[in-house]
């Protein structure tokens, strides 16, 4: 029922919307886990735009690059979660604003 493919503008819009949701999540939410998830959303928003351009320009660079981003994201998740657990051991909370000791 769709003639051809979805125009690139739709993908890009989706990507932008997800990215903004991610930014706003990082900025406004206090829960560490949610902030973390928001960062993942931002990464994936970028992935979407990479894949969209890849398909649109008929290249394969974008796909490879998105794999790289996923790898980074996976590594980031493992380190990030470890940090969160370490934090939680020191302070029984997930409220990001409680962790404000690292300043002068």
């Amino acid at each position: 029922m769709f003639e051809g493919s979805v125009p690139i503008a739709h993908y890009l819009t989706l990507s932008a919307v997800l990215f903004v949701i991610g930014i706003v999540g990082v900025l406004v939410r206090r829960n560490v886990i949610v902030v973390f998830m928001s960062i993942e959303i931002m990464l994936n928003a970028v992935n979407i735009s990479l894949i969209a351009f890849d398909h649109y320009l008929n290249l394969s660079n974008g796909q490879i690059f998105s794999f790289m981003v996923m790898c980074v994201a996976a590594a980031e998740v493992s380190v990030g979660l470890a940090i969160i657990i370490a934090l939680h051991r020191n302070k029984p909370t997930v409220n990001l604003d409680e962790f404000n000791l690292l300043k002068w």
Partner: protein
Amino acid sequence: MLLKLTCLVPLFPLIGSIINGFFGLRIGKNAVGIIAAGSMALSFLTSILVFIGFLLLPEGQHIFEQVVWSWFGAGDFSVDFGFQVDPLTLVMMFVVTGVGFIIHVYAIGYMHEEYSFYRFFAYFNLFASAMLLLIMGNNFLLMFIGWEGVGCCSYFLIGYYFEKKSACDAGTKAFIVNRVGDFAFLLAVMYIFNIFGTIDFSEVMHAAPEKLVYAGEAVTIITMLLFVGATGKSAQIPLYTWLPDAMEGPTPVSALIHAATMVTAGVYMIVRCNALFNLAPMTMLAVAGIGAATAIMAATIGMTQFDIKRVLAYSTVSQIGYMMLACGVGAYTAAIFHLVTHAFFKACLFLGSGSVIHGIHGEQDMRKMGGLKNYMPVTYWTFLVSTLAIAGIPPLSGFFSKDEVLYHALMDGNIIFWGMGISAALLTAFYMFRLVFMTFHGESRVDPNVHPHESPKVMTMPLVILAGLATAGGILGIPLFHGWHILHNWLEPVLHFDLANALHHSEHILHEAGRHAPSWAHLLDPKEHNIWLEMFLMVFSACVAITGIAAAYIFYIKRPDLPEKFTKGQWGFELVQNKYGVDELYDETFVKPTVEASNLLWKECDAKAIDGSVIGTAKIIGWLSKQAQAFQSGFVRNYALFIAVGFISLLLIMF
């Protein structure tokens, strides 16, 4: 060639000083003593070799210069690190190394109980080295280095017992008072450079008659500044106050530095610059006047003091006054002659007083001595010989030298100078025998718990040698028959001065400048050597000396109650005993305002203005960083916001 050894003479004591200073504590006292005295002995022997080399110079050559290296240069001005040997230098070299060696040996015995034995000898050798640099340097700047070097070592050694407040204060006083003179000396050197374009002694002295106008402004200012320098180093009015206080140092220091060598540096310098001083009659008058006034004033103070070393210190001031008087009337030979004999007998007197102090365990007050001649015979006899020498009893050395000074004061100066000189001679005989009688004769007033004893041989041998020199030193200048005056003939090349030629040049310079030259013809009248007058003066001053001794005998042996009667409650006596209040006057006029001004500068300028500006700058930076600190809130979301805002603004700027 033997003269090539010249540069070694000051080098030996310097090496000794370095070894003792750095390794003295490790190598032990005996080694320190051997190195210190040995370096002086080597220096003395080298001086003899240099002397022989000098005698072997071809006829008519009276100066040898050895440039070790070129010190520095700027434009067409260059200064060499070089030594100069001429008859005057040789005389001084023998005094410094010879008497210095004897005093070093003595000090080994005198200082043996001290813990910082090595420190003493390191400074002592350093002093000898600096003094040799002073007398051997071939230009004014090198002389100035030595001049400052001896002042510095003097400071170190006066403050040798630095645990004692009075010793520290005395050292500081000596240093600061000397600075006044040193500053004037430095100004004189600059002025000399300004006029001559060089500061080499032989060049300056050679060019002086051609470039300077007789009695002109320039030469008067230069010589006046040099003389102020000399008053500082040689303890003349008005800068003499440091020398009596300098007696806080160990006695060998008083003997070597503050009697025999350093304090005569001013006299040496004036004689060295005789070509300049001969051109400045006004300065000469000032030199003679100050010298005579110092001689008599110090002698009066010396009569009233009770500290054995202080009496000798004032005696030194007084005797240097004689030397200045001699310089001032143009009798440079007499000045150097008196310098040499004074080095002998005053060194012997100081060392003798050190032996006395050593023998009664550190007591210096003559009121607590008396009757010591049976306990320490060697000290007594050598002391007596030197006292007779300084009092001017024939045929001891002091008699000849002092008479020569007085004779020239009368012939080349005027009767006032002579009168002051002869009065000072009377006082000298009196206070010196007062010292001898109070210390060695009469009833013993020594603390009964103290058992006086003679000093060891290492201390008495130097005394005997110096007493021998004090006896025989007069041979250098037997005055009666023309041509017999060894020192006069020897120094002739240095002191030779053609006044007629200088006046001729001065007239020429003035003429070119379009000014009228005054008549100087009377200056060239020949002066006759009046043997009969000199004979009469000799007999007269010998009588004066004997009168002084007799007076001391009456006052301190026959009728010991008399001094009490004469002095008690007399305001005149009190005034003199308080040294005419000069110290207090200086305290009020110079020291206190300086201290107050320094305090003001410290508390207002330094603590408030300078520290305030520095601390203020730091505070401003601190305040700024306080403001910047707000950005580091510790809230992760804040940081994220900054990142986002930064990124967005980057985008906005780029597109």
